[in-house]
C-alpha cells in the first residue's frame, strides 16, 4: 500500500502573504521629447519598504518618425485617397528595433550594459519565441503578426493609422508616420526585467538609461514593387522622435512588520545580500564581402570579451548592412555561414560542426527547452531558414522574412536551478565558420549573443554591483 498522498488529494488553504500593497508605478524619463541617438534617463527612487516586481515590468515609449524617400505612404491626395498605404513597413522585430542600448547604473557605477539591444532581442525572439505568443507580442511590442507563419513586417498605416499631416505636409518624398506606442520587455532590461523581486528599498541611486536608434532604416523599410513604379517605396533617411518614455513596474510596498521579517531573513543593511540572474552580452563582428564570396572551410573569428564564470549558451545571428533603397529589414537575424563550431579552452564545441539547418534548429532549441516535437519553438521554418544566407536587393514584394540563428548550449544542468555553465574566464572564444557563395553585396554583421549567469550584490551601503567573471 502506498504511503504517498497525491497532491491532488491534499486539501489545504494557502498561507497568508506578508502584509503589503501592490500598485503599478511609472518612472518617467527626465527628458520629455528626444530624437534618435539621445538617451532617456530614468531615475528609480529608493522607495521605502519597496520592491519592484520585474517579472511584469516593461519600458514604454512613443515614437513618431519623419521619413525621407520616394513613394512613401502619404495622403497628399486627401484623407479619402491615401497613397501607397502598404509602402512603409515596421521591422518584423517590432518596436525594440528602435532601442540601441540599455544601461543600468547604481550610484553612478555601471551595473549592466546591453549594447545592440535591437539585435539581442531579435536573435532571442527568433531563437525562443513562438507563434502562440506572437499574437499578443504584435500588440505590445509591434512584432510582426502572421497567421501563416511567414512573419513579414507590419504595414505601419494599416496597423497604427495614417501619416501625420504636420507642418511639412505629407508627400511621397517626406512623410511623418503615425505615433506608435510600444511596451517592451524583450530580454533587454537585465535585472530590471528578469523576474526577480528587485529590493529597491535597499539600492541607492538606481538609474536606467535607454539609448534610442538614430538611423530610421534600422526600424522601417520600404516595400519593393517591381511592377508598379508608383508603389515602389524607398527610404533614404529621416528622424525618429521619442516621447512618453517610462519604466513601468509593479511596486510592492510592505508594511513595517513584514519588512522587518524580510530584512531579518536576508540581512539587508548589515551584510552583502546576493541573488542570481541571467544576463546577455552582444559582440558584433564583420563577415566581409570577400569572406562571404570565398569558399573557406575554417575561417576563425575571435569573439571578444566572452569571458564568464558560467557561460550558459552562445547564439549567432547575422544581420544585413544598410543599403541605399531602405528596402531591407535590418533587424532580422539570418545564418550567413555554412557551418559553425567554437573552440573554447582548447576544446571544440560541439565536437562535430553544426553544418545543416536542422542541426542549427535543434541546437538552438536545446538552449531553451527539451528537443521535443511538442514543445520546441523557434521562428525558423523550412521555407524561410537556410545556411549561407546572402544579402540581396529585393526583386519583388516581400512575402517571407527568412530568419535563422545558431544557438549552442554549454550548460550541463540546464533543467535545474543550478549554476552549471562553461567557465570561459581563462580562454578566448574562437568561432570557426565556413563560407561558400559568390553573391554577397554587403558585409554581414555577425552578432554573437552570450548568455551567462550573474550574481548581483547589494552591500550594506546600498550599492548594487554585478559579478560574472
Amino acid at each position: 500500500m502506498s504511503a504517498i498522498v497525491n497532491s491532488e488529494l491534499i486539501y489545504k488553504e494557502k498561507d497568508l502573504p506578508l502584509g503589503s500593497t501592490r500598485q503599478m508605478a511609472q518612472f518617467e524619463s527626465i527628458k520629455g521629447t528626444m530624437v534618435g541617438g539621445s538617451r532617456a534617463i530614468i531615475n528609480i527612487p529608493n522607495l521605502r519598504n519597496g520592491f519592484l516586481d520585474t517579472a511584469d515590468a516593461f519600458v514604454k515609449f512613443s515614437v513618431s518618425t519623419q521619413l525621407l524617400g520616394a513613394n512613401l505612404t502619404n495622403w497628399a491626395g486627401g484623407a479619402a485617397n491615401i497613397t501607397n498605404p502598404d509602402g512603409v513597413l515596421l521591422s518584423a522585430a517590432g518596436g525594440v528595433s528602435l532601442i540601441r542600448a540599455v544601461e543600468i547604473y547604481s550610484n553612478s557605477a555601471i551595473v549592466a550594459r546591453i549594447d545592440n539591444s535591437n539585435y539581442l532581442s531579435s536573435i532571442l525572439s527568433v531563437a525562443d519565441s513562438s507563434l502562440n505568443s506572437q499574437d499578443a507580442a504584435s500588440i505590445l511590442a509591434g512584432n510582426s503578426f502572421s497567421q501563416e507563419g511567414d512573419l513579414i513586417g507590419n504595414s505601419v498605416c494599416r496597423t497604427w493609422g495614417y501619416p501625420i499631416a504636420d507642418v511639412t505636409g505629407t508627400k511621397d518624398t517626406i512623410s511623418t508616420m503615425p505615433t506608435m506606442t510600444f511596451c517592451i520587455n524583450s530580454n533587454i532590461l537585465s535585472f530590471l526585467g528578469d523576474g526577480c523581486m528587485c529590493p529597491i528599498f535597499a539600492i541607492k541611486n538606481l538609474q536606467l538609461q535607454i539609448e534610442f536608434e538614430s538611423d530610421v532604416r534600422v526600424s522601417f523599410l520600404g516595400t519593393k514593387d517591381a511592377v508598379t513604379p508608383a508603389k515602389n517605396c524607398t527610404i533614404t533617411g529621416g528622424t525618429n522622435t521619442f516621447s512618453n518614455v517610462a519604466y513601468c513596474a509593479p511596486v510592492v510596498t510592505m508594511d513595517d512588520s513584514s519588512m522587518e521579517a524580510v530584512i531579518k531573513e536576508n540581512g539587508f543593511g548589515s551584510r552583502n545580500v546576493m541573488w542570481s540572474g541571467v544576463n546577455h552580452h552582444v559582440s558584433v563582428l564583420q563577415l566581409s564581402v570577400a569572406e562571404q564570396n570565398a569558399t573557406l572551410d575554417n575561417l576563425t573569428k575571435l569573439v571578444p570579451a566572452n569571458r564568464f564564470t558560467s557561460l550558459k549558451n552562445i547564439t549567432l545571428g547575422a544581420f544585413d548592412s544598410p543599403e541605399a533603397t531602405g528596402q531591407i529589414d535590418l533587424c532580422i537575424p539570418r545564418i550567413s555561414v555554412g557551418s559553425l563550431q567554437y573552440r573554447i579552452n582548447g576544446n571544440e564545441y560541439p565536437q562535430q560542426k553544426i553544418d545543416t539547418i536542422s542541426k542549427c534548429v535543434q541546437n538552438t532549441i536545446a538552449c531553451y527547452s527539451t528537443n521535443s516535437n511538442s514543445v520546441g519553438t523557434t521562428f525558423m521554418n523550412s521555407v524561410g531558414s537556410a545556411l549561407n544566407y546572402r544579402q540581396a536587393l529585393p526583386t519583388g514584394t516581400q512575402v517571407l522574412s527568412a530568419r535563422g540563428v545558431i544557438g549552442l548550449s554549454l550548460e550541463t544542468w540546464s533543467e535545474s536551478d543550478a549554476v552549471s555553465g562553461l567557465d570561459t574566464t581563462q580562454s578566448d572564444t574562437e568561432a570557426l565558420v565556413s563560407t561558400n557563395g559568390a553573391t554577397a553585396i554587403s558585409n554581414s554583421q555577425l552578432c554573437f549573443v552570450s548568455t551567462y549567469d550573474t550574481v548581483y550584490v547589494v552591500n550594506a551601503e546600498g550599492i548594487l554591483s554585478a559579478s560574472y567573471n
Partner: protein
Amino acid sequence: MSVVSQDYKYAPEPEGLASRCYRTILPSENGTYGLGQRVLINIPHTHNGFINTSNSWLNVTMDIKGLTGNGITGNVCLSNIGIYSCIDQINIISGSTGLVQEIRNHQEIMALLLNNNSDRSAQLPNSVCAGTTPVVRTNLRQNNGLDVSGAGAIATQTYSIPMIGLMGAIKHLPVGFINQGLQIELLLTNSVTNIIFSKVGSATAVIGGGETTEFSFEYDADVVVVNDNSMRLIKEASSMGNSGIMSWSDTQMHCTTNTVTTAELNNTSTSFKQTLIGGVKPKSLLSIFHTGFGGSQKSGDPWNLYAYWSKDFRLRLGSQEYPPRFIETMAEAQSHLQDCLGQSAVTLYSSLADHNSSDLGSRQPAATAATTFTETGACGYNFENYVDTAQGIDTTGKQLLTDVSLVVSPSGATTNTIRAATYKRFAVIYSIAENGDFSVSY
C-alpha cells in the same frame, strides 16, 4: 519555518554537480542504408557518463533516387510526418538482456503524436528538423512538396529528429552503469511510397520506383560526465545506494493494427465491430488511442489519420466498458484525446486537428482522387488516476477490445480497407543491475 515567501529570500543559485558536458555524434555501423535495411548505432560505455536524451536527436540524410511514373514532377509530397515515415521500428538493445524497448509501427505512433500533441508554433521547427509541412494555418499539408529533378531524383534531404521512447526520455540515460553494450536499432521502411505520395489523382501522376533510395543515420548526443564524488552522490540519491540496482520509471507506447474490410466499411445499415487487440498486457495501462490508416492501395498521404468509425467508439477491458456509454461525436473523441495528453483545458489545447480534417467516418480516398486534406481524426481514453503519476489500470490477464459502429459513408462506398491502429501507453520500470545488465519491466 520563516514567514518570508521564497520571492523575498535572496541567495545566489548553488553550483551544479561537478561535471562537464559535450556534444558528439555517434555514427551508425554502415555509411549508407537502403530501403528495408537494419540500422545499428552503438552507444559507447562512458565512465561516469550520462546521455541527456531530451537534448539529443537522430541526424538523418535521405537521398531519393530513381523515381519513375508519369506526371510526378511538381506533384511529389513528403508525408505529413516528414522523415519519421522512413522508420518502421525503433528498438533499443542491451547486451545479453536483449530488447529494452521495441517500438513497432513507429510511423503510426508519430502520426498520432505529431498531429495531436503539437501545435502551430512547434510546426515551424518541426518543418525544418523533421520535414513536416511548414504551413501553419490551414490543414492543406499536402503542400509539403519535394521537387523532382532529372532522372527521378530529389535533392538530398537532411533532418535532425528527436526520438521517442528511451532515447527521448526526460531522465538522463546512465550509460556509465550499462556494461553489456547498448544499441539503437532502426528498421527502415521497404517502400518509398511509405515516405512520399502524389498529391494529385492517379490519372495525373503515380509514383513508382525509388528502390535505390539511400539513407544515412547518426545519433547526435549530449553527453554529461560527472566526477567520482558526484557519481557517489548520484548513487546515494538513487535507489542504487540501497539495493545495488538502479531503477526508474518511465512510459512506453505500443501500437497494434487490425484490418477493417471494405465490406464492413460499406455496410448499408449500421453494424458494430469488435476487435481483439493483441500485444502487451501491462500492469499499469495509462491510456489508449485509436485511429485508422489507409489500406494497401496507395492514395493520398500514407500517414493520414482516418477516424473511420461512423459514430460510436468504446473500449472493453475484461468485463467492463470504458467509458460506460459510447463516445459518439468527434468533439467527445477529441476531448478524451486531449485528456490523455494532459491538455484538457481551453488554454492548454495543443493539436493540429481541426473540424475540417477530423470528421467521423472519414475513409481513404480512391486512387483517382486528389488529396485535399491531411486527415487528423483520432480518439483516446485516459486511465491515469492522478496527473503525471503513471498510475493506470492493471490489465494483466485481461483482454482489450475496441468496439466501433460502421456504416457506408454518405459520400459513397470506399474501395480501400482501413488499418485500424490501437495504441497503448503504459508505465515501465527500467533497471540496471550491479553487473550492468539493463532491463525493462511492465
